[in-house]
């Protein structure tokens, strides 16, 4: 480990990294599928509003849906082609609104561009709008609208912009490749971010298993740009915003708060690169870099893939092993298992990993034991919860107690607890269920209270 890699957060786990298969493979362009299914809600927030008609011809990069309100981003055509249909298509959790586009076969697929924004002259407001127009969301997997994240709340001062190049999920190597291949875009993006936030400095945090990326970036920091590249030891989930802030700056984001509460904004390195790539030309996101890997696929690699590429086409293209059992979108720690091959690649998909019987067979046999209170989860939880106690409470459905006494809502579902649990208790899954139940319960209580207040107000008015 290098001398500068002492900085890290407490707890966490060490899943096998499994990055060797793809980390040295350069990013390649993935072919266009005969039909692309573009969900209108690839981000957290309101779905975008379509601005095209069925049957309309669109050019690659053309705006096809515009943001519907602040918590929403624009959507652009991933390919030149025809809008086949606008309607419901299969999404991660049920059917979602979307647009089908049939790319023109053999088209040159040139990218349409819009209004350029210059990093040194544009106002912060213009940059924010440009980011929203470009449809930028967190490409690390969260898919949170980037312009919302970058809006500094009044009264807060940002002193550091952190670029998240940690990529702590096993198998994934997209950020690694982006750092090696898109350094200019990254630094360009940083210019926008610094301008936008008014922060005096920027730190790029990279885990020590990517020394080549660190060296590469360090050697190419443009003169005058206040950027440092820092190496942090390998540990999951360092890529989580809060963990990275603690690792690099030793600050803790308050429970229920935002990084801006401690003067920080964290942006994923691929997102930064996209900003740096798109804004100078006014373009929008039509593709992204993903890692296709895992023991279940044949042609593993890092691909620049059009948004909306169906999973089935993707897997057919790279080829899969016969005993494939599970495909998940994202890394194995936080990624979601694909329920069907009709799902498509979205902006938040950082990878497609496939497992065969070899990996999952053992998993299926591993029966669940009762919690033996070994405390491994307590040692793993990066935010110092007590997953064991939470799991026991969840088992008997005492959800509200989990939230009120044991900080359930602070859990960001990194999966470290489930990963280490020798009793194979699906802790994270139970926490998700519990969180949903608590939110529902609280919303119901709040609306009931509001109704009560309304009744009282009306009563008061009448007397």
């Amino acid at each position, binding site marked *: 480990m290098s001398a500068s890699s002492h900085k890290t957060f407490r707890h966490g786990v060490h899943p096998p990294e499994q990055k060797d298969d793809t980390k040295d493979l350069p990013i390649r362009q993935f072919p266009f599928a005969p039909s692309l299914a573009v969900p209108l809600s690839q981000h957290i927030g309101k779905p975008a509003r379509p601005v095209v008609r069925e049957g309309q011809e669109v050019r690659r990069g053309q705006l096809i849906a515009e943001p519907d309100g602040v918590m929403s981003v624009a959507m652009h055509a991933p390919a030149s082609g025809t809008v086949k249909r606008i309607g419901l298509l299969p999404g991660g959790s049920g059917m979602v609104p979307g647009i089908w586009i049939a790319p023109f076969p053999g088209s040159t697929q040139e990218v349409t561009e819009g209004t350029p924004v210059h990093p040194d002259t544009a106002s912060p407001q213009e940059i924010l709008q440009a980011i929203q127009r470009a449809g930028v969301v967190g490409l690390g997997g969260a898919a949170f609208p980037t312009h919302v994240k970058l809006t500094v709340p009044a009264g807060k001062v940002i002193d550091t912009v952190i670029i998240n190049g940690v990529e702590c999920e096993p198998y994934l190597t997209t950020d690694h490749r982006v750092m090696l291949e898109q350094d200019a875009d990254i630094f360009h993006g940083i210019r926008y971010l610094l301008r936008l936030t008014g922060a005096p400095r920027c730190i790029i945090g990279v885990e020590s298993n990517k020394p080549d990326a660190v060296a590469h970036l360090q050697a190419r920091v443009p003169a005058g740009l206040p950027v440092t590249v820092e190496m942090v030891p390998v540990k999951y989930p360092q890529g989580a915003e809060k963990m990275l802030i603690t690792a690099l700056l030793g600050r803790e984001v308050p429970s229920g708060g935002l990084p801006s509460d401690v003067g920080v904004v964290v942006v994923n390195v691929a997102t930064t690169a996209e900003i740096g790539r798109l804004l100078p030309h006014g373009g929008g996101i039509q593709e992204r870099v993903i890692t296709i890997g895992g023991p279940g696929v044949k042609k593993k690699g890092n691909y620049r893939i059009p948004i909306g590429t169906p999973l089935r086409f993707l897997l057919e293209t790279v080829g899969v092993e016969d005993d494939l059992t599970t495909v998940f979108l994202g890394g194995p720690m936080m990624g979601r298992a694909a329920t069907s091959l009709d799902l498509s690649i979205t902006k938040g998909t950082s990878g497609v990993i496939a497992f065969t019987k070899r990996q999952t067979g053992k998993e299926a046999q591993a029966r669940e034991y*009762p919690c033996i209170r070994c405390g491994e989860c307590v040692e793993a939880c990066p935010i110092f919860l007590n997953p064991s106690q939470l799991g*026991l*409470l969840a*088992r*008997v459905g005492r959800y509200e107690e989990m939230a009120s006494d044991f900080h359930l809502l602070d859990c960001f579902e990194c999966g470290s607890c489930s990963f280490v649990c020798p009793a194979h208790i699906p802790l994270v899954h139970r926490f998700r269920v519990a969180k949903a139940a608590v939110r529902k319960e609280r919303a119901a209580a709040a609306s009931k209270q509001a109704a009560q207040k309304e009744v009282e107000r009306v009563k008061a008015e009448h007397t």
Partner: protein
Amino acid sequence: MTPEPHWQILLNSALVNNFVLAWFLGICPFLGVSNKVGTASRMGAAVTFVMLVTALATWGINMLLDTVGAPYLRLIAFIAVIASTVQLVEMFIKKTSPALFKALGIFLPLITTNCAILGLALLQTNKGYDLGRAIIFALGSGLGFTLALVLMAGVRERLELADMPDLVKGTAASLAVAGILSVAFMGFAGLGS
């Protein structure tokens, strides 16, 4: 013969001859109020306090009855004293700390029928303690009661989350835990001899 030293009385009443685990006094609150650590410790504190007051009062009553020569009124006098002590404590707490009063709820009046209190008064009389020893004895007994109650509550809070067979849930499980605690407390036997 030499009277027992104070530390011996304290150790004995709190650990070796624990009121609950060795003497079976105060079993009802022990089983009834030991499902939450919070209530258990408050109940323990209330009982300890009432014990101290009772020890003082019954010691005086006993002296009085001995002088008057009416030992047969002892039981009635004791129970009357305890009932009024609890009443007084209840009123006092209600005045000074309504929050504590609310937290203790029905447990306060229940202390009247808590055999640990009357048991304390009777044992203290049987043992012929002087005033100082009586108070130490009450303190030790109260601490022992609280200790047993709180330990029990801790285990029961954990058992609430356990996957117990339905048949066992409730009193049967509590009694089994009490038995194990009682066995564990046997380790203290002989302390202070």
